[in-house]
């Protein structure tokens, strides 16, 4: 690969990083806090491409120093980002991994509102570890995507993320009561319901999966940040 090809690859790589960081595309893969760094890295890569062409023009490389062919692989992420733009992790990954619900240190009182809007993981933790004490007599509203297990039972899932999709871990809530009869995996649902003591164990890692007694469920568009990043705040 000669200098000009290297400059082209650097420029493409930088441009696709800027593209991902400037749009919501990057939120499918990495935490939102990484966006400024992505833009910065993209700009540096484009600058490196420009500098390569600039210095090559002023004094063309005399020695035939070529970078190894492995460098061509850098085109793969560019193509994957620009041509394919794979979706965020969904029901397939969610059902392969065990629920990663963790016991929170405390249960602050619910905010005002009826129904009260809660994060899916927040509801799950209160239901699973606090016997729903802080949820009694309240209608809650949670959002997540649908995943079906082998038996066809429906779960509402949100994937928690700390850095990138490689460390994404699902938090699952079982749906019971007025569950819509036909559910497509990966559809986003806004579920309104109440606490139910019913729970089960995740077959993958034996983690607790609480349920919600559904009173209403309506499809919604996927949020711009599909992951639960509450760990990062």
């Amino acid at each position, binding site marked *: 690969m000669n200098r000009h090809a290297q*400059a082209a690859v*650097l420029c493409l*790589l930088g441009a696709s*990083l800027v593209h991902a960081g400037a749009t919501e595309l990057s939120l499918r893969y990495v935490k939102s806090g990484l966006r400024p760094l992505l833009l910065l890295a993209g700009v540096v890569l484009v600058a490196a491409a420009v500098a390569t062409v600039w210095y090559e023009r002023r004094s063309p490389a005399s020695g035939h120093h070529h*970078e190894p062919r492995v460098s061509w692989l850098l085109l793969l*992420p560019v193509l994957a980002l620009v041509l394919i733009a794979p979706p965020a992790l969904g029901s397939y990954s969610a059902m392969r991994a065990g629920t*990663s619900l963790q016991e929170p240190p405390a249960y602050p009182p619910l905010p005002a509102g009826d129904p009260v809007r809660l994060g899916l993981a927040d509801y799950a933790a209160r239901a699973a570890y606090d016997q729903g004490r802080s949820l009694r007599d309240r209608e809650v509203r949670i959002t997540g995507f649908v995943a079906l297990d082998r038996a066809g039972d429906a779960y509402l899932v949100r994937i928690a993320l700390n850095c990138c999709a*490689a460390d994404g871990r699902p938090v699952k809530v079982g749906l019971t009561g007025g569950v819509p009869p036909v559910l497509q995996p990966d559809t986003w649902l806004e579920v309104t319901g109440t606490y139910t003591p019913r729970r089960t164990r995740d077959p993958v890692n034996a983690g607790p999966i609480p349920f919600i007694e559904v009173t209403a469920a309506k499809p919604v568009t996927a949020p711009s940040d599909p992951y639960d990043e509450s760990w990062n705040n």
Partner: protein
Amino acid sequence: MAVTVPKTQPPPPVREKDDGWHLSSPLVLTVTLLLLLLAQAPIRRALSAPVMQSWTTVFVAVVVQALPFLVLGVLLSAAVAVFVPASVFARALPARPAAAVPVAGLAGAVVPGCECASVPVAGALMRRGVTPAAALAFLLAAPAINPIVLTATAVAFPGQPEMVLARFVASLAVACAMGWLWQRLGRADWLRPPTRPAYEGQGRGAAFWGSVRHDVMHAGGFLVIGAMAAATLKAVVPEPWLRAAADNPVVAVLALAVLAVLLSICSEADAFVAASLTQFSPTARLAFLVVGPMVDLKLFAMQAGTFGRGFALRFAPATFAVAVGVSALTGAVLL
């Protein structure tokens, strides 16, 4: 979205001498990109199966997540190579290599970032005359014991400060042990001195950007290999296997150490994954946290690219063994 191929000048009529192919690489690049653009629809169809989609997502995620840190490391390394005179390191580090190792390891604590940044920086340190043993201690310690990573660990393990302490102690111990081991047993010819054009006789700007370009092209290519391997394992290895492994204390430690190698998670995020592996003992999770930033697929590929394959093939397994041993020991004492 349209792919814009940057305007590159047609290459000067440089004859590719010894290697056999006579196509100019910009031409190959342009033709490849056009063909792929035309084949976009069939490629998308082929990748629409859930397992392939999940593979592609994780692959892109690992690369996108690592690139900013790689760029940071590459900039630091270029700055070290071009702007910092070699005498600075000679003065900052003790002259005796045995004493320089722990100092360099501790210095890793102040460089924020993950493992992708530390590989190019360690390479630059070696080229600036830092003794390899000390540079390697830095390479191993920096991604594990810097404040960002330790804070993340504290957040992921609330109410268990001993986990943070154990991670710090064990990681630093492994880094120093490997540094001293290299000093005793390491041979200079295992380390491939990175082939690169000499920067002497160029302007500082040319040298700086030349170093950035070189490091991104080298480490980046290997980063892609590592990301492909990590995505394959994430999409293919079933989690119930882990559950079976968790029951035996010895197998559990080994299983999580191997998992850390295979998953290649950024050291800033691995504590959260470790925290979610609740079925495993604290010592096994400590092994996951100690091994991960020092040996993983992505890192192995990048080390092979920067220091040579002969080095990586010896260094990575030795580090793995030392890291597992030290983790088990630290876990027994502290956890």
